[in-house]
């Protein structure tokens, strides 16, 4: 009998093992219908014949009462405490309606297209434009009545364009821009030559030439490297498509044709993009092998702090990390925390990216300069098409994109606000970036699904290009501009293949 009882127990254990993959999300999924199309259900069908959707059928303006909306924010906002502040303020304002915003408590990169149709997924999502816009094709997110929002007039058209989509011939705004992301130059003021004001400021504008144009940065880097003491001028991982592709865009390259909407037209090799790639190749020659892979991406903070690098390029949201490392470096030299902090703030400068020579020749004296068109992104909020409370969600988005919260977001997270009034109020980097976005010097990442395919081919090319600077003369692959052009053309082919080859099965 004992054996039989054991056998029954074991079979029970086996069944339990089989069931172990089930459940787990019941807490999150609880209370959601699964197919819930929210308030839009049925009412919006009137728009079907016209090809467009009457947004008032989705967003009636009547707030749903006693509902909970789940918001997916980015991890940094949660970690730094901004998100808690945001939902607390929102919940207090809408307490009378019983609307409660909570953390969706999901991975920030979770896929709404996978989760939404089955009743999971957040009601409101905060992500980059390329991520949010891939949900448009399956109508996983709702179009928003942007013009009726208070923030509409405060956000520049370029930022709104990142969220524009045409569905059935009608144009919609699919999200609300919150902040702009692009590249900035970080450098150490205390590592400038002592006599820079007399020898490195030709135009006398009190800004060192080496941070104003890449030719002088190249000249200064060469001087530093010539000392052969393990120090470098400008350094960064060149393999990174996000930072390196801007050099191609500045000379006529682009990602997709028709303003980044046509995945049939690849443009990494378009125009004179090879000149931009050649600029990167010239820069690589004055760096060490760390520029080939991504290992210096993380170490750049400490390398700038210990003076190994004079300058680097990255996004403005990591300013605090550079600052912290520099403060620690000063403290290690014997300064007090206060002194070190103040000196770090004074010496760490974040500024606009230097201008490029129109010729692409970094050794040219007195070149004609052109602005660098850097790749950028616009992060924003979108509303899930599976939410049961679209009006409450819209209220949340409007609240989060309001002046007060944007200002607070900037203070706590160092982001560059998409709102012009906030950018004006905070000034500094935000103002510069805002100006660049307005002037078209920030090329916003494409908002079509095919953008997922640009990274690996691009990364491979830039890695190969950077490596070329360290290959023996006989083994070099990119000896002429034509070689570079061919390399870029093969990137276009690879992206095209990745996007289209398998699409034939569908």
């Amino acid at each position, binding site marked *: 009998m004992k054996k039989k009882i054991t056998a029954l127990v074991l079979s029970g254990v086996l*069944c339990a093992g089989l069931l172990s993959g089930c459940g787990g999300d019941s807490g999150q999924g609880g209370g959601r219908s699964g197919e819930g199309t929210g308030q839009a259900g049925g009412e919006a069908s009137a728009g079907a014949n016209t090809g467009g959707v009457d947004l008032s059928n989705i967003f009636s303006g009547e707030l749903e009462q006693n509902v909970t909306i789940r918001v997916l924010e980015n991890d940094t906002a949660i970690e730094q405490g901004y998100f808690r502040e945001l939902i607390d303020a929102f919940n207090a304002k809408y307490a009378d309606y019983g609307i409660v915003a909570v953390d969706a408590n999901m991975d920030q990169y979770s896929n709404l297209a996978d989760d939404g149709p089955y009743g999971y997924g957040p009601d409101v999502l905060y992500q980059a434009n390329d991520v949010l816009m891939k949900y448009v094709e*399956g109508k996983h997110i709702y179009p928003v009545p942007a013009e009726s929002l208070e923030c509409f007039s405060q956000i520049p058209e370029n930022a709104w364009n990142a969220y524009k989509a045409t569905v059935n011939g009608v144009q919609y705004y699919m999200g609300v821009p919150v902040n702009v992301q692009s590249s900035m130059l970080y450098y150490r003021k205390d590592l400038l030559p002592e006599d820079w004001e007399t020898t490195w400021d030709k135009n006398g504008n009190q800004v060192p030439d080496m941070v104003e144009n890449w030719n002088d940065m190249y000249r200064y880097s060469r001087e530093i490297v010539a000392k052969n003491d393990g120090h470098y001028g400008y350094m960064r991982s060149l393999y990174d498509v996000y930072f390196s592709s801007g050099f191609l865009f500045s000379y006529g390259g682009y990602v997709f044709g028709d303003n980044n909407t046509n995945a049939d037209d690849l443009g990494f090799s378009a125009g004179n993009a090879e000149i931009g790639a050649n600029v990167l190749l010239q820069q690589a020659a004055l760096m060490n*092998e760390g520029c080939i892979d991504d290992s210096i991406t993380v170490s750049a903070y400490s390398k700038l702090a210990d003076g190994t690098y004079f300058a680097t390029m990255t996004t403005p949201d990591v300013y605090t990390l550079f600052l912290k490392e520099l403060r620690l470096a000063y403290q290690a030299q014997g300064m007090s925390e206060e002194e070190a902090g103040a000196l770090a703030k004074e010496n760490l400068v974040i500024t606009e990216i230097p201008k490029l020579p129109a010729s692409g020749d970094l050794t040219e004296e007195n070149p004609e300069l052109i602005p660098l068109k850097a790749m950028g992104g616009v992060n924003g909020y979108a509303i899930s098409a599976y939410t049961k409370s679209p009006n409450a969600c819209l209220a949340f988005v409007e609240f989060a994109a309001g002046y007060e919260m944007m200002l607070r977001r900037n203070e706590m997270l160092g982001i560059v606000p998409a709102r012009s009034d906030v950018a004006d109020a905070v000034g500094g980097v935000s103002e510069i970036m805002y100006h660049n976005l307005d002037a078209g010097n920030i090329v916003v990442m494409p908002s079509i699904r095919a953008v997922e395919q640009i990274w690996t081919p691009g990364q491979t090319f830039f890695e190969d290009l950077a490596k070329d600077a*360290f290959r023996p003369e006989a083994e070099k692959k990119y000896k002429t501009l034509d070689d570079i052009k061919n390399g870029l053309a093969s990137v276009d082919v690879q992206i095209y293949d990745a996007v289209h080859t*398998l699409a034939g099965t569908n």
Partner: protein
Amino acid sequence: MCLMGLGQLMYGQVGKGLLYLAVLALGIAYFIFRGGADLAGLFTLGTREADTWLGIEGDNSVVMLLMGILAVIALLLLAAVHVSNVRDARETQKLLERGGRPATFQEDAKQLLDRKFYKTVLFLPILGVCVFNILPIVFMIAIAFTNYGGSIVPPKLVDWVGLDNFVQITTLSQFAPTFGRILGWNLLWAVCSTALNYFAGLGLALLLNKDCVKGKVFWRSFPILAYAVPGFITLLGFKFMFSYGGPINQLITAAGHRAIGFLDIDAKWIARLIGLGVNAWVSIPSIMLLATGILSNRDMTLLEAAKIDGATPWQQFRRITLPFVLFSTTPVLLGQFIGNFNNFGVFYFLRGGLYIDGYFLASDTDLLINWLYNLSISNNYYNIGAAISLVIFLITSLISLVIYTRSASYKEEDTFR
């Protein structure tokens, strides 16, 4: 015959008959209210596309496919119950013909705890296996014959496409050369890494089994520590170690030499060798533990006899220890081979994110499973992914089957019992 339980009822087995009848009633009710539509949905995969903006719920092809397969499984289970019903009625009839009497419900129930206890024990696990093991496998196989993926994901409707996916992956001009290159490297990798891990693990176990080794527990703990660290953490650690900014290159540059691109775009064979080494680091401890257990069961008298007969240590290993360990571990060895053949992590973490010239959306260290990832998962082409998975399954199962059926472990299964 047509009506389940009728035979039992006619022989006066009311309880059992009603039970069979209830199962039939439940089955019919399921197929009327749900299963019938699910079966029909399996063929159509939906006819009405959902539109969240217009509030149209529509059909979800993926759910329909899943529920359709479940309905087929339910139909098969119902058929199996029906067969058991017929068999039971026939046995009762034969019993009556031999002059016996039909068993009562209580007697049948008792049998389920005695002679037919295996049925009681296995009922729920079999049901579980059908739903949680067979269903996902059949679902994956079915996906290979649909156009699910790319832009065709719910709410869009998925459709059956027959063998189109297989035709696509075999006729695309870019595929064949890359497939050949990757398959060749994949086979070499699987054989080399399995052999290296196996013999290094066995060697380590033998070494730590020697009487002359002091502090065995202490030494044994090191490989176990390496084993305890999650694999991907180890892989990322090694990636950093071999990167340009990593400690190995720092030592090299500090010594006045140029940094070496261990894993960069030109490092085909160096990267492959590093992959073998890192995989060995991750896998050897498990083989060592396994071999340590098996070695403790060795018949030491055989070894002593061999020693007396003048056999060298190498001869003892080759003629006695290795056949003994190999016999016990052939299935594990095969598992290791399949695991290494489909080892996604090593090159994904060490050298992912590269497309090399001459390869179609792959690098020269990618295995088939990495290529499958690049082609399908990165692009969400689940249909192509499923089709390539089936091809990989065919290759690995064929190799496993051939090796296993030719091994001593299979041919002389009873030798060590």
